């Protein structure tokens, strides 16, 4: 009861949140997300790590931990804040989700570039766990190891060597000439953008929320 009123009261605010990020979003979509949010939180106002960890479909995801962490990362809230939250409200939930909005077809090139940057930043933050602005080799290795973690008996050595090769590639494309004494600390955001130039992130990293499965939606009890 309270939730729904709260939701209605804040609807314009939510729309604003997502519109800020150059996304146009319909009330319908926000409503869908809100229902899902309620379902996940068990009709509470906030959602916690455990709530997300309980999602059965996520169990098979090799990067489940990183995904959940990303939801509670303050850096993804567009507020120049660091650290992590214990619980997030619907606003924050929406904020994280907004990273996955498809880019508007009428968007100009600059808008596309901004969206692309946002999406890349989200990815970067997922890798850069200690928030020092660079993805170190260790962090990158963790990423690759996690990525391969579901595939059974994978020697960590292989994962490491893949991360090493990848890191080497980043270093060599971005800083082609290094003296033997030089040390490439890690991937900065600029380098990160550089290496992922080939992937059309603005279109690839997007999900259609529009045709949300209403069957699952209905599980979240809507009281009004």
């Amino acid at each position: 009861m309270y939730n729904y009123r709260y939701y209605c009261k804040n609807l314009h605010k939510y729309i604003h949140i997502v519109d800020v990020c150059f996304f146009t979003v319909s009330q319908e979509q926000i409503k869908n997300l809100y229902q899902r949010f309620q379902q996940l939180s068990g009709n509470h106002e906030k959602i916690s790590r455990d709530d997300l960890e309980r999602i059965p479909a996520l169990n098979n995801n090799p990067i489940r931990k990183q995904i959940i962490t990303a939801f509670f990362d303050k850096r993804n809230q567009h507020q120049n804040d660091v650290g992590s939250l214990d619980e997030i409200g619907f606003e924050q939930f929406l904020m994280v989700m907004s990273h996955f909005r498809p880019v508007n077809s009428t968007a100009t090139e600059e808008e596309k570039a901004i969206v692309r940057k946002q999406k890349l930043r989200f990815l970067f933050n997922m890798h850069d766990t200690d928030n020092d602005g660079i993805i170190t080799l260790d962090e990158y290795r963790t990423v690759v190891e996690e990525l391969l973690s579901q595939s059974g008996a994978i020697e960590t050595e292989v994962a490491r060597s893949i991360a090493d090769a990848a890191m080497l590639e980043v270093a060599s494309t971005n800083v082609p000439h290094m003296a033997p004494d030089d040390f490439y600390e890690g991937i900065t955001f600029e380098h990160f953008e550089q290496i992922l130039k080939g992937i059309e992130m603005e279109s690839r990293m997007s999900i259609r929320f529009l045709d949300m499965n209403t069957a699952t939606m209905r599980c979240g009890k809507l009281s009004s």
Partner: protein
Amino acid sequence: MPSGTVSHGASGRLRGLFLVMVLVFLEGSVFTVAVASSDQHSPTTAHSGGHKATDHGSHNNTGKAFPVLDLNYENVRVPFEISLWVLLASLMKLGFHLVPHLSNIVPESCLLIVVGLLVGGIIRGTGETVPPVMDSKLFFYILLPPIILDAGYFLPIRPFMENLGTILIFAVVGTLWNAFFVGGLLYGVCQIGTETSSILSRIGLLQCLLFGSIISAVDPVAVLAVFEEIHINELLHILVFGESLLNDAVTVVLYHLFEEFSGIGSVTLLKGFLGVISFFVVALGGVLVGVLYGILAAFTSRFTSHTRVIEPLFVFLYSYMAYLSAEIFHLSGIMALIACGAVMRPYVEANISHKSHTTIKYFLKMWSSVSETLIFIFLGVATVAGPHDWNWTFVTVTVILCLVARVIGVVGLTFIINKFRIVKLTTKDQFIIAYGGLRGAIAFSLGFLLKKEHFPEREIFLTAIITVIFFTVFVQGMTIKPLVELLAVKKKQEAKRSINEEIHTQFLDHLLTGIEDICGHYGHHHWKDKLNRFNKKYVKKCLIAGERSKEPQLIAFYHKMEMKQAIQLVESGGGIKMPSAVPSTVSMQNIQPRPPTKPAPERAIPQLSKNKEEEIRKILRTNLQRTRQRLRSYNRHTLVADPYEDGLSDLFLKKQKMFQIEKKLKEMNTYLTVPAPPPDSPTMCRARLASGKHTDFKPDQVQKGNKMCSDPQAYSIKPASNKVPMIQVDLASPQSPDSVNLLDEFGQANQQEEEEQGLMMKPPSRPREAKKPSEEDEAKDPQKLMRCLSDPGPSADEDEDGAFLP
């Protein structure tokens, strides 16, 4: 004759080349004249004609004295002529690429058609009938399958699947729309023009619809021929090309449906309904047959590890069988081939040897390109040969209707599709899709198949079809390239896929799946993930032999990359000169994290605390072990270890001998730095983490070194035995007194060590300075730049690291 041609062509004189080409035409025409004349005697198809001719020849021989020199052309006529045609086609292809700039202006397909027209004209000019080269059987059973298999086997699965919905809508709805629009309006035009021309008025609605269904399908051969040359971006390419592949089912069904109707003459609702069902049967049945054969092929390739030679044959045979099996039931053979190629590829590739894979690649490319060339030449010849009935109204209306229908269809359908697409199709894209709708030989062959008794207007149809084909191939095919440039349509990036992109593509897949799961939205990422897991869990185990079935995609990619680089390394002469585009001096040590203990610029021997020392020791130990493990795991996939890669390993051995001489010193260092000292007396080993090649932090280096030396043991004292090496790390400068220790202990290696020191102590070398200006441009971080410039230049062997950079 052919050898003469080749030598003339090789001499490089263009005029001479043209002369020779003309000679080839004449030669071809003379022989085809022979075909034609013999065809008059035995009016059968080429194959049976050959048999009959053989009989003739044997009859002639009887009753004569023993012939010392006998002329019996008839015996070899058929294979000889086939070879001649193929030779002509190949020489034409060769010739076009020798003439500079020609291929930039005119697409090859146009040139080939012109060649065909010329050949046909010459044959006709000599007063003979032109042989029926464009036989439908020949086309559908011999010429078409290689092209389609090539397309299916190398189909970029990912973009294809991502755009499957759009492609299907274009292929099914678009083709249906085109067929009915063109057919219907054409009938209307024919009826309007009743008074003026009596021929047109006889054409019924069904015939018009049949004609519409023949003419409306975009042709994969023509599309491939043109789109390969304009290097359009992946999305547009897959949209047009995918449409041309998948509309085959629609065309087949419509063709048979209307043919049936016009044969019987009555259309009932039931039959229409059955037609719709038959569409699904034809399309899905084709795919099913293809998948079945694909799985069979994959399963067979599981057991071919002892007979590598025939591996490629299985791929070709199973695919061809799939095509033929589908054709038996009038299912879509093209769909079957596509499905078969696409399904078998990932599994077959994991099973077969690297060489077989190359063989498959080359054979497919060779066959498809020869087929394509022949098809276009034959199209030209058939144009000259065919009985024509030129009807201005019909032809003009057909061409205009085809264009209009295509444009309306594409624009209308995109309007609907764009509502569901994340990446919207822009106006430019729509234009290219509409403009790229080329018609080709499939339409002609289908028209050729029409029976005269059911279709008295067959000649009119054929003429119109040929006109449309010529119009699309010549006008659209020639103008599409300038238009693409004019509109600045995004082109294909030629960049190789980097490992970072691969990692992130997968990361993104999982991330999106995860987000979808959190939203409770079962989108296509969700289902793709399910499918992938199913594939990994069950299918791969059955179809892929041994270890590799468990290999995740990322690791497979990594191995492939490693393999490619290894081959590159071998081919480039042991990696001394790397052909890599970006000369880079970055090596493993530049990215390896130093242990936190490293005192940054300190040059004196650092006092390491006990636990820090232990830490470093641990790092070194794990790295050593890792190196050893990776050596083993690497050998499994490397060229030398694979007994079937003997050719490459021959080359490899040769190179490596050369390499050994040149690189001995450096290789030595690699091993010298990680000696296994007696367990009780820890050796002071100068494992300088910061510089030089001799740090065991570089598994790649060591591993590469091992690969290069046929017998690494010969140089290394005792590389990392099972005993835990006790290495004390000294982070000091090269001249640290500890290095003397090392020299004493390993007297044998004295020379090399000194050599190496000499290398290390070199002041910044000259090439380094030459690079400075460019560096200044590139370096974003001024601090980094400073460091780059102030540091001693890289030793010569740094180049080798380029080998491991893609």
